[in-house]
């Protein structure tokens, strides 16, 4: 009971930060390069809202909620993959050759995940939601974690000066790695109670962790950049004082 209250608290704190970050980005003047963040935050909020609505309308044990839940889960994983793609694009903004290779790699990886999941689905044709989507989501989620780590290594390799992107990638890494580990533990223990409670608490904690790192990257780093930029520009009085009039 206590752990589920904490879990709900963390979940709602996450919604609040997602909405605040979106509002901050909407009101901010510098929107360049933030499309990936806006896209992911927007899809998180919209899909969570859809889930909440379905739960309220149909109830936890209904089939309709079951379908809505797994469909939104599928869309969430696909949007996570697209987020990683957009981060790759941002990292390779001045490296066209690298981007061409990364684009091919991303498409290839997506097709491989789709193929493997499809192969499993072909053996259990009647269970679209229980086999294909669960398998596809797990595979793609783990793939996103691996691709995100590759992106981090790429940023180190090209000595990227985009500090904000570095922190955004680290935040995504926390968000992907925690739940993946928890789900693997759940799978290994065969759904033991302690593994279930770990999974229930790890997921919102990691989501919150990612959002806080993103908030730091978006709000604090931008503030510092603005302050540095302001510091560099001399005022009219300073220019006049320095000149020999």
């Amino acid at each position, binding site marked *: 009971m206590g752990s589920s209250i904490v879990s709900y608290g963390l979940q709602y704190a996450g919604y609040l930060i997602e909405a605040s970050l979106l509002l901050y980005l909407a009101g901010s003047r510098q929107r360049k390069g933030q499309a990936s963040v806006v896209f992911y935050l927007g899809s998180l909020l919209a899909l969570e809202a859809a889930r909440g609505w379905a739960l309220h309308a149909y109830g936890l044990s209904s089939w309709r909620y079951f379908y809505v839940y797994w469909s939104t889960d599928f869309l969430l994983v696909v949007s996570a993959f697209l987020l990683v793609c957009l981060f790759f694009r941002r990292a390779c903004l001045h490296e066209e050759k690298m981007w061409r290779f990364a684009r091919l790699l991303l498409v290839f990886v997506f097709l491989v995940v789709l193929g493997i999941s499809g192969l499993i689905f072909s053996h259990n044709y009647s269970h679209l939601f229980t086999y294909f989507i669960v398998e596809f989501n797990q595979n793609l989620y783990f793939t996103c974690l691996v691709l995100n780590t590759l992106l981090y290594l790429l940023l180190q390799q090209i000595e990227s000066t985009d500090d904000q992107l570095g*922190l955004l990638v680290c935040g995504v890494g926390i968000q992907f*790695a925690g739940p*993946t580990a928890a789900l*693997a533990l759940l799978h290994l223990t065969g759904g033991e109670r302690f593994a279930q409670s770990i999974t229930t608490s790890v997921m919102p904690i990691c989501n919150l962790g990612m959002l806080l790192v993103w908030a*730091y990257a978006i709000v604090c780093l931008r503030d510092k950049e603005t302050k540095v930029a302001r510091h560099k520009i001399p005022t009219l009085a300073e220019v006049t004082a320095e000149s020999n009039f």
Partner: protein
Amino acid sequence: MIVAALVLILSTALFFFYFQVTCQRILRRQFDREYFQSIANANRLEFPSLRKSLEEFGAPVDYSRLRMMLKCDFLALTYLLKNAANVNQRYSHDERLLILYFRWQFLSLAVRRLLRVGENKAILKLTAVLQYFANVVGQRVNAVKFGNLTAADYLLNL
């Protein structure tokens, strides 16, 4: 079963890797000047001398004394972070994350001590966190004008 175990090991390792990298990225923040020295002097903090002795001589220090020094500096700095020239009287998100990182590294220091592997590296990481905290406190105190008081005077009167 083997695949699930591999995924568990890999993703747990990656989780801690990303946690560490995030903290190190926050610690890389540049301050407009070095505030930590005046804060350390005013509060008789020992981490700058500890860091200097490790960097210059790599000399092993008495472990129990070292733990005590780091812990005392950490407690003093976290108190100052919360109370010195902080209108909200609470930690920011990045400070909370770094507090967690410090505790994690403190634990890792004990493990490294047992295994006798990379002790000095862990101590340097801990002093880097303390230096960051001292810089944040110094910057905040510097931003607030207290008549003719310097940052050190203000902290001595706190």
